């Protein structure tokens, strides 16, 4: 039991890497698709709607398996430059996770975009601020602040989601925990240790979000 502790800790590192990389790409995708969704182009609007619908309507495990096992089947892909990335289980996992969290993030941002008070935008326009500046300096900060609580939840869901990486050969926290359980047959002890590590990370994320919410509160 004590001998498995270092193994679990190094696996935690894998989990943390997966979460941060997925969230990073996911937030980029989320912003992009939220903008397309609230934009004027009908085709792009529909595209981002279906993207979000499909990725939110299917289990992430299916998405991961399609990307890992499914795409590897296509001969053409394997001889293309994309294979450099898709060859690695690590990148397959990050792509699947990022696309998934991107879909949820785009919904969070979209609803924040839609709740921006029209008056603020009009005020900006009447002051003669150019459109791009209105977007970066007014809209985006409001959206980000508005989205903080919901995005915090999404971060925690993503942390849990990375446990699926263990199904495509990556030894993350859950993968190592499962391996130890199936060799030592001590499910309860391992569950407590691995579970506590996850809860600890959740706790940290929760508090960072809380801190940010306070810092960027509308009331100061």
């Amino acid at each position: 039991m004590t001998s498995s502790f270092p193994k679990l800790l190094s696996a935690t590192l894998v989990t943390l890497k997966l979460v941060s990389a997925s969230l990073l790409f996911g937030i980029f995708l989320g912003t992009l698709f939220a903008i397309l969704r609230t934009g004027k182009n009908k085709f792009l609007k529909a595209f981002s709607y279906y993207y979000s619908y499909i990725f939110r309507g299917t289990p992430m495990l299916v998405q991961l398996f399609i990307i890992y096992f499914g795409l590897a089947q296509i001969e053409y892909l394997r001889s293309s430059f994309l294979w450099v990335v898709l060859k690695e289980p690590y990148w397959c996992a990050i792509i699947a996770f990022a696309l998934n969290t991107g879909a949820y993030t785009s919904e969070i941002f979209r609803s924040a975009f839609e709740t921006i008070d029209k008056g603020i935008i009009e005020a900006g326009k009447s002051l003669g601020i150019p459109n791009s500046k209105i977007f970066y300096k007014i809209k985006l900060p409001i959206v980000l602040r508005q989205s903080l609580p919901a995005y915090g939840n999404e971060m925690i869901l993503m942390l849990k989601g990375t446990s699926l990486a263990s199904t495509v050969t990556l030894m993350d926290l859950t993968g190592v925990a499962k391996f130890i359980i199936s060799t030592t047959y001590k499910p309860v002890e391992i569950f407590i240790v691995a579970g506590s590590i996850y809860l600890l990370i959740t706790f940290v994320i929760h508090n960072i979000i809380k801190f940010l919410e306070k810092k960027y509160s509308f009331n100061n």
Partner: protein
Amino acid sequence: MELLKFGDSGWGDELFFATLMTLAVAITAMLIGFLFALIFTPLKISKNKTLNFISNFYTTVMRGVPELLVIYLFFFGGTAAVMYVAKIFGYDGYIEINAFVTGAFSIGIISGAYSTEVFRGAYLSIKRGQFEASKVLGLKTNVSFFKVIFPQMLRLAIPNITNVWQITLKDTALISVTGLVEIMRQSYIAAGSTRDPLLFYSVAAVLYLFLTFFSMKILNKLEVYYRRGY
């Protein structure tokens, strides 16, 4: 397309029954979740600190720990726990808890944590005036709860319960690791035996989309029904 035919040569019928199995597990898990919510929501609302702590511990752990880990706990630990109890009563054989029960229970206990939060939220957002009004009218506590508060809780909870249903339905895919033949496991078997993972996992995705689409239709109707008069 040959591969998706019904009958001995194709996987159509297997996938069809796997879809029914997914639905059966998801519905059972949802109901088990409601049972848990029925126990833990009152504890959460209660003014007793210890009860609050118990309930918060449950919802925090079940919402903070990966579903897979919870499933492994029950899959590997459930049998051992039941056998341990049986041993106390003098029975020393193997007791099998079947994959359906393990799966529905582990997904249900997670689903219950989300449901608890939803019901607590619904209860808290009922206006104080409603409680006071029923007091003034002289309604007994249980009458006021079942006739005034509970119907409103339902109305407020349904949109969020719809989300819990979506989470629960998708979580059932993870039970495939225990060997229960639901959509994901069946696709895994078919993909392995035909060496065509792309086709079968895509079919799995379509089946899940189909399930979410139609269950959302039904739940939205329910929402409209409970919103009548508002």
